[in-house]
C-alpha cells in the first residue's frame, strides 16, 4: 500500500515530464486550465489548429498513441506507462479532444480488422492528428439497441452503395474518415445482417448536419448518406460480421482506465467557501456525500492503476466510473444553483456566479448520462457481467430483421 512509482515508472515519468517541459504549448496553459469541459474554445488561437499541432508534435516523439506499435505511429509503452503519460500531460490533454474517438475506438478497430497495407497508411496519420476519425454507429431508431440500425449497404460490383442516416456523431464536421456500421441483409436476424466499413467523409452523398443541443453547443451531428459509394476494399471483417467488428470498437470505448471524470465537487467546495456556507448544516450534509462519492471514484481509478502497475488487468470496479460521475455532476450542478439563489438563473459568463460553470454543468450533464452507454445500459452490464445475473429476454433476437416490430420512427 503506497503511492510511489516503481523505479521504472519513476524513470518513465521523468522522461515524459522532461519532454513535456521542452515541447508543450505553454502559452496556452492559462486558457486550457480555465476551459470548461465539452467543446474546447480558445481565445488566442484556433482550437483545432492548436490541437493538431500538439498531436503532430507528440507523434514525432511517440507520445501520440503511446500504446500502439511504432510502425502504426505509436510509442509501444506499457499500460501503466500510458497512465503516467496521461498524468503528466495534464491540462494539455484537453487539446486531444478531436482525436479521442479515433485514437480510442476507430484506431483499435482498424488495427484489428484492416489489411496490413491499410493499417500502415491510415493509422500513422490518425495518430499524428493529420486525419480525424468519427464513429458512425447510432441512428434515430437505434441507440442502446445498436444492432437495430437500418442504414443500408447494397453491393454493386466492387462497390457498396449506402443510404440512410446516422446521429450523435461527435466531430463529424471535422472528420476525414468515418467508421460505419450498416445493414447488408435485412432478411436474417438483426445481429447477423450487419457489415462494417470505413469511408472518406468527403465522399459524394455524405451530408453532415450539426445538432443544436439543449446546451446550445453543437458537438454532435446527424450524418445523411444518399447513394454514397464505398469500395469493397474498405470493408472491415466479412459481410455479415459487422456485429463482431462493432464489439471491438465498443470494448475499447469502455477501456479508458485511470482517468477520473470531472464531477464538479472541487468547484462546489470553492463556491461554498466563497459564499461562506461551509458551516451551514444543510450544506455540509450534501457536500460531504458528494465528496465521498467523488473521492470513491478517484480511489477506484487508483485501484485500477495499481492493477496495471502489477501488470494485471483492472478488475470490474473500473466499470462504475461514468455511471457515478454523470449523475454526480448533475446533482452537484443542481445543488450549486440552489445555493446561488436567484442569481443561479444567470448563465451569462460575464455576470454569472463562478463564470457560469455550474450552469454549463447542469446543461451538459444529461448527455454524460446517455452517451457511450446510458446509465441503464451500464447498470445492465454491471448486473450481467459483474454480478452474473441473467441477460434480458430479447424477443427480437431470432426474428429476421425485417419482421421485427418497430414503433413510429423516433426522431
Amino acid at each position: 500500500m503506497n503511492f510511489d512509482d516503481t523505479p521504472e515508472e519513476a524513470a518513465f515519468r521523468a522522461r515524459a515530464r522532461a519532454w513535456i517541459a521542452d515541447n508543450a504549448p505553454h502559452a496556452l496553459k492559462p486558457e486550457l486550465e480555465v476551459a470548461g469541459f465539452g467543446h474546447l474554445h480558445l481565445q488566442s488561437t484556433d482550437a483545432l489548429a492548436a490541437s493538431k499541432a500538439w498531436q503532430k508534435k507528440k507523434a514525432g516523439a511517440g507520445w501520440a498513441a503511446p500504446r500502439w506499435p511504432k510502425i502504426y505511429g505509436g510509442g509501444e509503452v506499457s499500460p501503466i506507462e500510458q497512465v503516467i503519460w496521461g498524468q503528466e500531460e495534464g491540462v494539455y490533454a484537453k487539446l486531444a479532444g478531436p482525436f479521442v474517438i479515433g485514437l480510442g475506438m476507430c484506431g483499435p478497430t482498424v488495427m484489428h480488422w484492416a489489411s496490413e497495407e491499410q493499417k500502415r497508411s491510415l493509422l500513422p496519420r490518425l495518430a499524428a492528428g493529420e486525419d480525424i476519425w468519427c464513429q458512425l454507429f447510432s441512428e434515430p431508431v437505434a441507440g442502446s439497441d445498436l444492432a437495430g440500425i437500418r442504414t443500408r449497404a447494397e453491393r454493386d460490383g466492387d462497390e457498396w452503395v449506402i443510404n440512410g442516416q446516422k446521429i450523435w456523431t461527435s466531430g463529424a464536421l471535422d472528420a476525414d474518415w468515418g467508421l460505419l456500421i450498416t445493414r447488408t441483409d435485412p432478411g436474417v436476424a438483426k445481429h447477423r445482417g450487419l457489415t462494417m466499413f470505413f469511408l472518406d467523409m468527403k465522399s459524394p452523398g455524405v451530408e453532415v448536419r450539426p445538432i443544436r443541443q439543449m446546451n446550445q453547443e453543437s458537438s454532435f451531428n446527424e450524418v445523411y448518406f444518399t447513394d454514397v459509394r464505398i469500395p469493397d476494399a474498405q470493408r472491415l471483417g466479412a459481410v455479415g460480421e459487422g456485429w463482431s467488428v462493432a464489439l471491438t470498437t465498443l470494448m475499447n470505448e469502455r477501456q479508458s482506465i485511470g482517468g477520473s471524470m470531472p464531477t464538479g465537487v472541487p468547484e462546489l467546495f470553492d463556491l461554498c467557501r466563497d459564499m461562506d456556507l461551509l458551516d451551514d448544516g444543510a450544506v455540509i450534509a450534501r457536500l460531504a456525500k458528494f465528496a465521498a462519492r467523488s473521492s470513491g471514484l478517484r480511489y477506484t481509478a487508483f485501484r485500477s492503476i495499481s492493477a496495471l502497475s502489477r501488470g494485471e488487468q483492472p478488475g470490474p470496479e473500473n466499470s462504475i466510473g461514468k455511471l457515478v460521475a454523470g449523475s454526480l455532476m448533475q446533482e452537484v450542478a443542481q445543488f450549486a444553483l440552489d445555493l446561488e439563489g436567484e442569481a443561479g438563473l444567470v448563465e451569462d459568463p460575464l455576470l454569472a456566479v463562478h463564470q457560469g460553470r455550474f450552469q454549463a454543468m447542469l446543461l451538459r450533464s444529461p448527455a454524460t448520462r446517455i452517451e457511450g452507454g446510458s446509465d441503464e445500459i451500464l447498470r445492465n452490464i454491471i448486473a450481467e457481467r459483474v454480478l452474473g445475473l441473467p441477460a434480458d429476454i430479447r424477443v427480437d433476437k431470432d426474428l429476421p430483421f425485417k419482421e421485427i416490430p418497430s414503433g413510429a420512427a423516433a426522431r
Partner: protein
Amino acid sequence: MQLDFSEEQRALQADVRRFFERACPISTVRKVIDSGDSHDPVLWKQVSEQGFLAAAIPEAFGGAGAGYLELCLVAEEVGRALAPLPAVSSLYQAAELILMTGSDAQKRTWLPRIASGDVIATVAVAEAAGNVAADLISAQVSGGKLTGRKWPVSDGLVADLAIVAARCDQGISLYLVDLASAGVSRRAVKSIDPSRPQAEILFDGVAVELLGAAGEGLGLIDAVRDRAAILVAFEQIGGAQAALDMARDYALGRYAFGRPIGGFQAIKHMLADMYVSLELARSNSYYGAWALATNAPQLPLAAATARVSAIEAYKLCSSNNIQTHGGMGFTWEFDCHLHYRRARYLASVLGTSPLWERKLVAAYRSAA
C-alpha cells in the same frame, strides 16, 4: 502506486475467511441472538488465540505486531461473517486509546490482557440522545470517584474494563474503570442488533484512574474514532458484500413470472447500484487503510470519507437485500435482518453520519 493489499496480506485474509466460515457459521450468530448472550465465548477464545484482532497491538504488549493493514482485512472478514464479537469496543477503540495515550504501566497492565482476550474492554461516552458533545456529558469525577450513568455502552454487560468520559475540573477527561469495582451496577438493554449487545451502566462513587491528559477527553475520543472508523468501514464493506452476495444468489434462484427474478431490470439495476455503492466505499476504505497504516496527515479526511461512504453502502446493500427477498426477507428465520441490524449498529457506534459529514467537510477545508 499500490492502492491495494499485498499477496501476503490477501493470503492472510483468505485464512481468516476460512476460519470464520468454519468457526462462525450463521448458526453461531443466531445462537448468540437467541440466547441473549453478549458474544460467543468459544469463538472469542479461538479468535484471540489466533491473534487475529490483536494484529495491530505491538508484540511487546502481547499483540501479533502484524499491522493495521492486516487488521483492516481481519475486520472485513468479521463484518462478512457477522461475527458476534466485541471487536469494535475492545480492540478498535479501547486498545487503541490505551496505545495512543496510556502510560507505560497502563499499557503493560491492560494491553496484553486485551490482546489475549482475557479482558474485554469498552468505551462509555454516550449518556443521552445526540452525537458526542461536552454538554451531553454529565458523568462526573471528583476526588478520584466517578458518579454518573452511561448508555448505551456496547458490550457493557460483559466488559471487564471501561474507558469512561466524564467531567472533571479541567473539562472532559477519560478514565479507566474496572467494572468489577464496588459502586458499578449494570443491566442489559434491548439492542437493535442483538448480536452486538448494549448495556446501561450506573457508577456510584467508583474508583477510577485517569487515562491521558486531564481535560483532553473529547479530543482523544475524536482521535481514536478516526482510527476506529477505518476498521469499522472494513467491517461494513465485508457486511455489505455479504448482503449483496445474498441478494444476488436469491435473485438467481427465486423464480417468478416463469424466470429468475434476477433477470428483471428492476432487480438488476437495484443490485448494480448496490455494487457501485460498495465499490466506492471499498476504494475510500483502501485509502483509509493506507492513512491508518502510515499515520498520514490525511487520516481525518480519509477516515470521515471512508465512514460516510461505508455507512451508506451497508445501509443500501442490507435494505435492498431484504427488498430482493420480498416477504421472506421480513421473516425472523431469513438472515437478511441480521445485516440490516448490523448495518445500523455499525452506523451508530462511532457517532452517526451527520457527525462524520461535519468532520469530512472540516477536514477537507483544512486540507485545502
